[in-house]
């Protein structure tokens, strides 16, 4: 594994990188930077796969690496109600990479291999499911995660401890009724739930600008009617994002109440491969902005940055090469994992096997 440390800067541990009134240690910033670059490399590799025929449809979150990396690094990672539950949408790959997911796992899903542990080659890219990290299956239905999130938080509140539920979505999806349901169910008097409601606001719904269909100034303003506190953060700024996420998590962990965090992010490759997945030039890139800051602070040099990008691209290329050599699903896999084994089912004691037979 490549080191997160820059060997040329031995005294980094003491340096602080500032953004406004906030700061983070330089070594953490460099770690965040490398993770951001690796996530971007995986997404860009998958975009190429969508064009080369190694994969089909691509959708993801390039442009949201700053926020998602800081989110993933601060998750209380584990299995069961003592740990955080993650109800992601399909733009959270950088959070998964930050949590420690090897790139190959994302690439396998895009390559539709049967070795894809998240969906067995069934689901689109970025549609993760990982039980040992409480990452519940991501759907393309951009609202349903909001009604499931109070359910995991309900169990967590009863369980005790400081595990919270984190639910993520875009700005467009907040128009769906399930978003309102999440606000209502998370704030029932006497039954408030530790749900961190994250809105990654890129101001787009495919081709529809948010300002053409939404009158509210900030999405978090909608929480006010339910007594749900919130914060808007520049999701392109990892230092600001880190602290906003830290505060939001701390609030949910200790007060056992919901909180809304709206991160203003960029969309750098359009909505999906359906719209061409071309690099847009008129939105800020969080990686470029962060590199400019790190260079300005003298904690990294351009050569090292170039190396980090090169290593990340190589890692993605290697992951692709490996994935393309792995087995594909066969007809025998079609029914697999439909049903869990049941001792009370006379027809399907183990799994679904096709229509009931005589």
């Amino acid at each position, binding site marked *: 594994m490549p080191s997160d440390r820059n060997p040329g800067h031995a005294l980094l541990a003491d340096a602080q990188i500032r953004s406004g009134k906030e700061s983070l240690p330089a070594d953490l910033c460099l770690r965040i930077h490398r993770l951001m670059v690796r996530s971007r490399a995986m997404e860009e590799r998958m975009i190429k796969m969508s064009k080369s025929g190694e994969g089909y449809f691509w959708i993801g979150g390039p442009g949201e690496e700053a926020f998602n990396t800081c989110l993933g690094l601060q998750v209380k990672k584990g299995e*069961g*109600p003592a740990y955080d*539950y993650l109800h992601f949408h399909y733009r959270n790959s950088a959070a998964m990479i930050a949590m420690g997911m090897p790139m190959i796992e994302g690439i396998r899903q895009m390559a539709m291999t049967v070795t*894809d*542990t*998240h*969906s*067995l080659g*069934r*689901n689109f890219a970025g*549609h993760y*499911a*990982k*039980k040992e990290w*409480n990452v*519940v*299956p991501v*759907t393309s*239905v951009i609202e*349903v995660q*909001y*009604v*499931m*999130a*109070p*359910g*995991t*938080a*309900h*169990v*967590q509140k009863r369980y005790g401890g400081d595990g919270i*539920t984190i639910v993520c979505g875009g700005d467009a999806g907040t128009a769906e*009724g*399930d978003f309102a*349901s999440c606000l*209502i*169910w998370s704030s*029932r008097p006497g039954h408030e739930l530790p749900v961190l409601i994250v809105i990654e606001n890129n101001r787009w719904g495919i081709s529809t600008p948010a300002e053409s269909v939404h009158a509210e100034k900030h999405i978090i303003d909608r929480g006010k009617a339910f007594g749900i506190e919130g914060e808007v953060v520049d999701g392109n700024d990892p230092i600001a994002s880190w602290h906003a996420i830290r505060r939001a998590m701390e609030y949910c962990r200790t007060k056992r109440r919901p909180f809304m965090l709206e991160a203003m992010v960029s969309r750098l490759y359009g909505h999906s491969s359906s719209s061409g997945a071309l690099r847009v030039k008129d939105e800020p890139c969080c990686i470029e902005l962060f590199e400019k800051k790190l260079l300005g602070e003298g904690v990294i040099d351009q050569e090292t940055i170039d190396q980090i990008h090169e290593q990340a691209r190589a890692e993605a290329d290697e992951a692709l090469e490996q994935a393309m050599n792995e087995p594909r699903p066969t007809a025998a896999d079609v029914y*697999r*994992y*439909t*049903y*869990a*084994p*049941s*001792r*009370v*089912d*006379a*027809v*399907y004691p183990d799994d*679904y096997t096709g*229509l*009931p*037979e*005589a």
Partner: protein
Amino acid sequence: MATLVQAVRMALHYGEEHLGVTDIFGEDVGPPLGGVFTATQGLRTAWNTPLDERGIVGMAMGIAYAGGKPVAEIQFCDYGFNTIDLLKVAGNQRWAGAGNFAMPIVLMTPSGSGIRGSLYHSHSFESWAARLAGWKIVMPSTPLDAYGLMLSAIEDPNPVMVLLPKALLRVRGDKLIPGEPEDEQTLKEMIDAPVGDRTHWKPRWPKLEPYFIPLGVASLVREGQNATVVSYGRTLPLCVQAADQLTEEFGYTFDVLDLRSIFPYDWKAISRSILKTGRILIINEDTEVTNFGEHLLRRVIDHHFYDLLVRPRALMGKHNPGIGLNQEYERNTVPQLPHIKQAMREIAEEEA
């Protein structure tokens, strides 16, 4: 004898105490009401939700993800239509997620006509439900079956929908639920909440015993020679009644199969009976276009076309926008005893 709704309540109590049920919830499910049909009175884990069916289904899914065992109620299946995509997602989670997460939820909801419910309290749901791959769907027609199927629904680690026939919720069975007191007045005093102030009321539960009816096993309620009748829910006792009358009046006898499980359905039992009688009539009250009974007919034709003596048929509800309140509408929209009896007589009498 317990009513069907009392049987459900006792099953849920057994589930809370012995099968790990952690949450029973829905609109008006908790105290003071305990369900608009009283199915959840006095239950330890019952609680009231906001009036939000999507929220209810999502809550159940979330609880299941986190290791709980939820039983959620949709007050009337008529109000579950806005949850269809969530139900689809609940059914696909294990499959979509490569087996990472099971989805051990129970969703119960009253279904069908028979309570003068007019447009929005008379709908049937089984044909919609049967299309939800990944789910198991059951529909009891007796209190004992309701008890046994509910226990299995709870025990099964997959999403199971328990459709409760509205018209039969107050009907008593002819078999005791294991542990049920023999005197129905005693049972009522023990587990029915009093009318009026219930602040200090607590149920006294009988010592109930486990009784699991395997999913996918039909019940042969009448045995005969002249035709096979497959039904479930509200129309099942009408089929039995019609069979008994036709036996008495004309000497015709029928295999009457109470399917009990809509999915998986007991194809073995259906197939065996067709091979005996050569005649099959499927009866339910859901609307007749893309009706679950039509799926069974397709399988009958695929597997038994050359075993049949007469054309297979189905008697179903009319493809109508709704069931009107005036009972003339209801009587002429969903199968009633005279329609059922006539269809059974016709299939028995038709020349091969």
